[in-house]
C-alpha cells in the first residue's frame, strides 16, 4: 500500500487538488449564481440543480479546453521547434519525429515494447501519435462543450432581458464565446512560453521539470542526461 502511494504520488497529489478545486468552484459558483438569481427577482436553486446546469459546466469546460490545447500544442511544437538551453526542449539539431532506432520501433522494438509497437503497421503509427491524438480530442470536445453550455447560458440571459434566442452558429462567432476562449488561451500561452524561457536560466533542485542545478545554461534536456 505504501509502495503504491509512493509510486503514484504525483498523479494522486493532482487528483486530490483537482477534486478540492472543483468542489470549491462548485460551492463558490453556487453562491454567486443564487445571488445573481435573487438580484433578478428569481428564486434560488439547489446545489444539485446548479452543478448539473450549463451555468456551472460552461465555466469548467472553458478551462478544460484551454489546458488541453496548451498540452496539445506543447507536445506538437516540441517535435519540430527547440529552445536551446531549456529542459522542456530537445537540443538544436534533433528536430523532427526521430528515426526508428531512437524511437525503438520497427526492427528496433523489443519484446517488452508496447504491443501496438511490436505488431507494426497502422497500429504503430497510431500508437506513436496517441498522446497528441488524445489531448487534441479532449481539447476539441471540451471546446465544443464550452460552446454548447455558453449558448444555453446566453439564451437564458437573453430570455431574462426579453431578447430573442440565438443559434449555436450565432454563438460560436459571438464576442461572448471568443472572450471566454481567448482569456483562457492567453494565460496558457504565457505560462508555457515563460516556463520554456525561464527554465534556461533558473533551476529547481530535484524537480523533473528543471535541469540539474549545476548544468550550464546552454544545455537542453536531452543533452543533460
Amino acid at each position: 500500500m505504501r509502495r503504491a502511494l509512493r509510486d503514484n504520488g504525483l498523479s494522486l497529489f493532482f487528483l486530490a487538488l483537482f477534486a478540492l478545486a472543483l468542489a470549491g468552484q462548485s460551492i463558490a459558483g453556487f453562491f454567486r449564481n443564487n445571488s445573481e438569481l435573487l438580484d433578478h427577482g428569481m428564486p434560488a436553486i439547489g446545489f444539485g440543480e446548479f452543478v448539473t446546469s450549463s451555468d456551472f459546466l460552461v465555466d469548467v469546460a472553458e478551462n478544460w479546453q484551454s489546458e488541453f490545447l496548451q498540452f496539445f500544442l506543447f507536445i506538437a511544437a516540441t517535435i519540430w521547434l527547440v529552445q536551446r538551453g531549456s529542459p522542456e526542449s530537445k537540443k538544436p539539431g534533433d528536430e523532427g519525429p526521430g528515426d526508428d532506432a531512437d524511437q525503438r520501433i520497427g526492427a528496433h522494438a523489443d519484446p517488452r515494447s508496447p504491443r501496438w509497437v511490436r505488431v507494426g503497421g497502422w497500429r504503430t503509427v497510431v500508437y506513436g501519435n496517441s498522446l497528441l491524438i488524445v489531448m487534441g480530442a479532449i481539447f476539441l470536445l471540451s471546446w465544443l462543450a464550452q460552446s454548447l453550455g455558453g449558448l444555453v447560458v446566453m439564451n437564458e440571459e437573453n430570455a431574462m432581458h426579453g431578447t430573442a434566442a440565438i443559434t449555436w452558429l450565432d454563438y460560436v462567432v459571438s464576442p461572448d464565446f471568443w472572450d471566454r476562449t481567448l482569456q483562457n488561451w492567453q494565460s496558457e500561452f504565457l505560462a508555457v512560453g515563460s516556463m520554456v524561457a525561464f527554465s534556461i536560466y533558473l533551476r529547481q533542485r530535484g524537480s523533473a521539470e528543471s535541469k540539474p542545478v549545476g548544468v550550464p545554461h546552454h544545455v537542453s534536456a536531452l543533452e543533460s542526461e
Partner: protein
Amino acid sequence: MPVDEETAGMRSMFWTWMTIIIVGLAAMILVPLSGR
C-alpha cells in the same frame, strides 16, 4: 518487484484520469444539449 515493472497502480492511475475526463466531457456536452 523490480522498479521497472508495470504495476496495477500505473494502470489504475491512467484509467482513473481517463474516466474523470470521459465522464466530465459527457456531462458537459449532454447537459447543455438537454437545455438545462
